[in-house]
């Protein structure tokens, strides 16, 4: 089995599987295919179709969640968000700019940390499973503990400031704390988001690396391939789809996520870390219970459209990298 080559295994979805031969075999294959996806499709029809459809329909209505009737307003909610409402539209634009920064920085940094981490972890023998568990911990650490731990580090008399001053870099320290200064708050939150998304990314990379036949790498090394080449020619092509998945997850979290922003800064100081996910959350629950569920939904679906668009671009880009 050491003769397996990479090319043969890169059977991604866009490569058609070989067709069944005779017409009868073809019918059988179609039926088999549908039988295999049936449970997933059935579950979606039961649980997903109505809920998503109704959520989408809501984006064309005004509703406070209590009245039995919705008030249909057509595409007014979308118009309001994009330009028509003098109160919502500027808020949306500002939050969008912050979200964009998060959306670019978080997936990029996550991959930049998780990939080397996973490859290194995979290459060592001692302490491997211990470290794997340790890297997993941010994924299960509760939000409030995350908040407390980072707050003590980042506050005006926190350890980051003390460390900077001790190193003679007092000019870099933040007298208002790293979350209190508008220009450092967002970058700080980005780092915390990266910290919390690295575990899943590392886990995914590790499971991808586990699927690579070590004999193959060995064979390549015997053939005299440099480690760099092994990484580029053998490992990367296999990890590319995983990277795509990690980026997709990062984009999703950047667009819809709000928990860390809510806990750490609440969008502050002075609205400088407001993001679209947080705005959706506020519209859903904290607009004095006005009829803003429809607008919240419209914002959610705008983000859906943006994410799909980005995914398409992304898929192209990742394809080109190969």
């Amino acid at each position, binding site marked *: 089995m050491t003769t397996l080559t990479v090319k043969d295994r890169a059977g991604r979805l866009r490569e058609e599987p070989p067709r069944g031969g005779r017409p009868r075999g073809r019918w059988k294959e179609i039926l088999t295919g549908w039988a295999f996806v049936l449970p997933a499709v*059935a579950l979606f*029809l*039961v649980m997903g*179709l*109505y809920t998503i459809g*109704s959520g989408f329909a809501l984006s064309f209505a*005004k509703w*406070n*969640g*209590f*009245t*039995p*009737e*919705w*008030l249909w307003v057509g595409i007014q909610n979308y118009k*309001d968000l994009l330009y028509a*409402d*003098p*109160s*919502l539209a*500027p*808020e949306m634009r500002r939050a969008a700019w912050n979200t964009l920064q998060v959306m670019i920085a978080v997936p990029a940094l996550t991959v930049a940390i998780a990939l080397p981490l996973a490859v290194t972890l995979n290459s060592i023998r001692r302490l491997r499973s211990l470290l794997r568990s340790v890297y997993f911990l941010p994924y299960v650490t509760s939000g409030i503990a995350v908040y407390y731990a980072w*707050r003590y580090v*980042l*506050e*005006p*008399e926190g350890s980051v400031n003390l460390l900077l001053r001790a190193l003679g870099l007092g000019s870099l320290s933040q*007298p*208002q*704390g790293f*979350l*209190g200064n*508008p220009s450092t708050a967002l970058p700080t939150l980005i780092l915390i988001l990266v910290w919390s998304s690295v575990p899943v990314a590392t886990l995914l990379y590790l499971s991808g690396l586990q699927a690579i036949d070590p004999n193959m790498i060995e064979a390549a090394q015997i053939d005299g391939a440099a480690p760099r080449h092994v990484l580029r020619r053998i490992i990367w092509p296999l990890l590319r789809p995983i990277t795509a998945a990690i980026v997709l997850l990062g984009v999703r979290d950047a667009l819809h996520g709000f928990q860390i922003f809510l806990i750490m*800064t*609440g*969008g*502050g*100081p*002075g*609205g400088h870390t407001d993001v679209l996910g947080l705005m959706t*959350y*506020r519209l*859903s*629950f*904290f*607009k*004095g*219970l*006005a*009829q803003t569920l429809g607008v919240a939904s419209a914002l959610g679906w705008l983000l859906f459209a943006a994410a799909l668009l980005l995914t398409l671009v992304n898929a192209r880009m990742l394809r080109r990298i190969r």
Partner: protein
Amino acid sequence: MTAARKRTRILAVAVTLAVGLTAAACGGSGDEKAGTPAAGQTLKMWTFKRSHADALNKAAAQFKSETGIAVTIEAVTPDDVFVSKVQGAAQTNGLPDVLELHAGGEDLEMGASGLLSDLSADVNDAWKQRLLPTTRETGVMTQQRIDIVANDSPFKQVKPGTRFSVPFTAGAFGIVYANKEKLKAAGLSADTPPKTWEEFLDALKATTAKDPQQGGLSLGLKTSQTGFNWVYQPMAHSYLGKEKFQALFAKGAAQGFGSPDGVKSLELYSRLTPYWMPGTTTLGIDEADIAFAQGKSAFDVGGTFTLAFLAQNGLSPDKVLTFPIPPPAEGQNKEISMSPLALTSLGITSTTKNREAALKWLDWVTSPKGAGVVAKSSLDLPATDLGAEAESLLGADLAALQKYFTGAPESAYDAADVTFFPSDYDQVKPGDVMVRLTPLKEATPEQTGTEMDKVMGAMWKSTQ
């Protein structure tokens, strides 16, 4: 109703049949109730405050022993989940009998949407007399409230005078707490509160000069509107007088925040800039109070509920000096008093099968006796006037805070009066603008005035 509902049912049934999933096997949560009000029945009540749930449970035990009616209290926290739970229950006919709600907004919205039963015939004058005077009309839909909302609001369907809730707890914001030891250390008197805004600033100056790190003012500006609601508004109210103050928010902004008077009030507020506790923008309301209790700041702004909270966090009331946000020396009002406003209120759902029993419970729990039981074990003042009992039930210190509730009517700051706000008022937006004025110093008072007028203008416009 039910166009949407019917669609749901048809769709769900069709889908269920199509897939052949008979999911009904597990049964619902089945809460059938007896129809007649009598002893031995059980009421269900939801609250969004955990501390109230504990207090209400105690009250419920006593209520049961007196009437035989049991009340089970369920606390649903945090606020967003509570709202979702009520929304879900409203759509699935699963509401409890009684709800505790945020007063003065949430109760009206839910009531106007058909969730709450009209109590105007039940809450008679005798009942109202029990309540603190400024809270009596909370929960009642007034013509004024109906007039200012957008045309498609459910408020428009409500008859003026409909009462959706009864005030339950009350309090006031804009109360300053000062650490007596720090006052003394800075050479200030620990017993005389500052008479004016300027004296307050001088006191802050002295304490921060004494201790730059731990001598400042703490306030939970992570919730940015606290600065605007608790400090700026009472200060500006006394500086400008009621009429000019309300004109700040008015449509068209003829006398808005950008007007000379408005800018002057913002300038007065921005003088706080050098005295904030470092990092106060990153703290939540509770955390700012805790920081103060731990001696990390010399002053703290909160409400009547802050006193008990500080005590629970290790700072006893005799170590703090309390006073309302003081009026600027050159202002309209030389005295300031805070009208207590209802913070939470109780409503009876329109779907209850136990309206009589629920009414009995509301009556009992807002009576001096019931309210006393609740007040003793929660941090909030009841909306019920406890009269002579107040001191024994609330403790001397909390009862003493009530002295700031009384004053000349024209100088009383009533935070419950929201009739002059834009109908789509969202306090986060002005809150953020004010944080950028101080402590962030990103805008001058003039720029802030312009920006505030823009924010208010946008909120007026977006509900046309």
